[in-house]
């Protein structure tokens, strides 16, 4: 799902560096990194990383589970979802159909998107080639108005 970040002055340079390290590790590992893994790269401690992640969560630059682990590094999902993307030599989970295309965009590569129609359950496969979707007849429906996307980000 789309992010709607807080104003940029909420995050300082250290927050941005932590965020970028976290994202880079997510991509290199193919999964959400643990605080210990990020701390190793940052030459920091897991506690400092977790505190920083909470600031990023408040600024909507990451989404954490209640326990503090990463749930979403939008457009990537740490948890399995109904929207899978094959891109850059890996399979990824996206938070929604928008994010599925977002993973290709973020990685700067073409990809294959696997989803399903929520109405009939039929599998939907879309290829992204030369940055264009292979089946232009498909539709995308967004149920929640933009102003309410963050009211329940999991539902959105």
């Amino acid at each position, binding site marked *: 799902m789309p992010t709607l970040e807080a104003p940029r002055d909420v995050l300082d340079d250290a927050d941005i560096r932590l965020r970028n390290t976290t*994202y880079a590790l997510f991509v290199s590992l193919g999964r959400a990194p643990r605080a210990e893994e990020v701390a190793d790269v940052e030459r920091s401690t897991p506690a400092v990383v977790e505190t920083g992640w909470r600031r990023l969560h408040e600024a909507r630059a990451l989404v954490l589970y209640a326990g503090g682990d990463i749930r979403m590094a939008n457009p990537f999902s740490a948890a399995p979802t109904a929207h899978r993307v094959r891109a850059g030599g890996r399979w990824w989970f996206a938070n929604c159909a928008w994010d599925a295309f977002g993973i*290709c965009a973020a990685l700067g590569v073409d990809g294959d998107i696997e989803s399903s129609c929520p109405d009939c359950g039929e599998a939907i496969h*879309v290829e992204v080639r030369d*940055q264009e979707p292979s089946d232009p007849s498909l*539709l995308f429906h967004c149920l929640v*108005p933009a102003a309410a996307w963050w009211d329940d980000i999991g539902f959105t």
Partner: protein
Amino acid sequence: MNLFRSEEHVDRWLGGRPPGATISVTELNELARAWWDDRLSPTWRPHSLEQNQAILERLGLTGEFWRLG
């Protein structure tokens, strides 16, 4: 935020609920590229609300439904 085979599938899935907004997958792809393509850039900075609203407007996604806040 899902993909559908057709408007008929969207309507049946809604089952009488008020509809949101439906766009083509081509428009969705353009939106995703504009929204997400900087996410792994080492120079990434948070988008402001105004920046994100401008992305929506540039793609013709205007009106109350697409107003971010």
